[in-house]
């Protein structure tokens, strides 16, 4: 943008005079020993600059200070909330999950607890290690969601899941967009993947709902799954091929799949059924509402 002006310069006499005027705060009377020509040049520069005074501006409104103070108070309230200990809770909104007063200490404690519980399960060492790291990554994404929501009026980042619109009768649903969390440093990019997945494409699946369904979910008041290990049957569904809704995630061997719940906890299911709802898709029986995770 600057290139358009690089060819413009003041002539040397104007430039020197402008420097002198800057030194005296544009008070030409403070310049001593000016020749008549210098004085005329100084006045010419000032006359040009005086046009800047004609730039139309408005005085501050009566409310500007009050609004600014309110903004500062809002910032302080948010900062205070971060320093308190609360149980992280979520509520859903039309634009995604809405969070209430999460706390770093609580979430950090939850992560440690989650990892230690997984460590006691004692399955195969490799799968256990993958499962633990997956749970830790998921917890970090969950923490990122909490803090993102704190900074964004309680809303979490969403994106349009156009590729699964066919599964929603042509309506484009919304899905949590965890890439935003990594891009804005609410978590690290490697947290967005389960190490058992191998790193190709998205490593987790995220809650996907049509806008109208968010309110319905909220009204049910049930435990809600935010994200999980990768949904293994999505591709077959989109291709309109047969699939087994009880297909487990392949990322942890026989250890089932992890899922982050809206109370901030992480659970591991040996089978892809959770709280009466399938994690992945409907099991063929209509319940009017379902947990649908896509990647």
């Amino acid at each position, binding site marked *: 943008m600057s290139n358009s002006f690089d060819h413009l310069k003041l002539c040397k006499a104007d430039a020197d005079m402008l420097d002198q005027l800057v030194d005296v705060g544009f008070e030409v009377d403070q310049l001593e020993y000016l020749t008549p020509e210098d004085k005329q040049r100084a006045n010419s520069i000032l006359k040009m600059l005086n*046009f800047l005074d*004609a730039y139309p501006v408005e005085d501050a409104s009566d409310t500007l200070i009050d609004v600014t103070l309110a903004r500062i108070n809002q910032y302080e309230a948010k900062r205070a909330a971060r320093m308190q200990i609360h149980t992280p809770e979520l509520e859903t909104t039309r634009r995604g999950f809405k969070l209430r007063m999460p706390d770093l200490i609580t979430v950090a404690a939850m992560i440690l607890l989650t990892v230690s519980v997984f460590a006691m399960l004692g399955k195969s060492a490799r799968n256990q290690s993958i499962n633990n790291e997956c749970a830790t990554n998921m917890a970090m994404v969950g923490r990122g969601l909490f803090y993102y929501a704190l900074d964004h009026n309680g809303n979490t980042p969403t994106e349009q899941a156009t590729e699964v619109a066919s599964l929603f009768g042509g309506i484009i649903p919304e899905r949590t967009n965890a890439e935003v969390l990594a891009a804005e440093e609410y978590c690290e990019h490697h947290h967005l993947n389960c190490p058992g997945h191998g790193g190709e494409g998205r490593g987790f699946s995220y809650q996907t709902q049509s806008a109208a369904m968010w309110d319905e979910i909220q009204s049910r008041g049930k435990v809600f799954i935010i994200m999980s290990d990768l949904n293994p049957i999505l591709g077959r569904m989109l291709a309109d091929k047969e699939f087994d809704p009880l297909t487990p995630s392949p990322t942890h061997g026989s250890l089932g799949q992890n899922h982050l719940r809206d109370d901030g906890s992480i659970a591991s299911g040996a089978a892809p059924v959770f709280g009466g709802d399938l994690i992945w898709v409907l099991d063929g029986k209509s319940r009017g509402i379902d947990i649908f995770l896509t990647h």
Partner: protein
Amino acid sequence: MSAETTQQTDEELLSAHIDGDSGAFEELMDRYKNNLLHFLIRFVGSTAAAEDVFQETFLQIHISAETFDPSRRFKPWLFTIAANKGRDWHRKHSKRTVLSLSQEIGGEGEGTRFIDLMEADQELPDATLLDTEQKDSIRNAVEQLPDHLREILLLSYFQQMSYVQISESLHIPLGTVKSRLHAAVAAFSQAWQTANSEDDV
């Protein structure tokens, strides 16, 4: 606001704010509300945007108050933060187009043109007698300036900040500050005259 706060310096008010004096910050804002808002309107181009940046600026002042060096002046610090916030605003809303001025005219090296303001003065109207249309032309001329020239022009002319103060505030070399102000004044002059000559046609 008490008589006591109105007699305190800016720096003392900021210090009082850090110590928990709830009225001190309000007094600081009151002192600069019009001066800062006018600067921001000229910088970002609209009152609504300027009010938003004004709030951002004082929020940043509040957040960073404890890092302020009390041996320095408050006003340059305030306008430095405001300029940074204004630049952030431009980055988020960078859809402005910039006039291409007399690029075909030669001078020092290919394409350089030297503006002599004393020559230009012979055709200039009195700034106090400008009509609404001419004031709009001035606004357009200012808005055509790239941000890095405009902020230096505004800091220098309206806030009477010295080259050294601007250099320290914006963390750019002294020579760059000078050359940018020279370019800004030349560009503003050229844009203003171009706009006026178009109006005359």
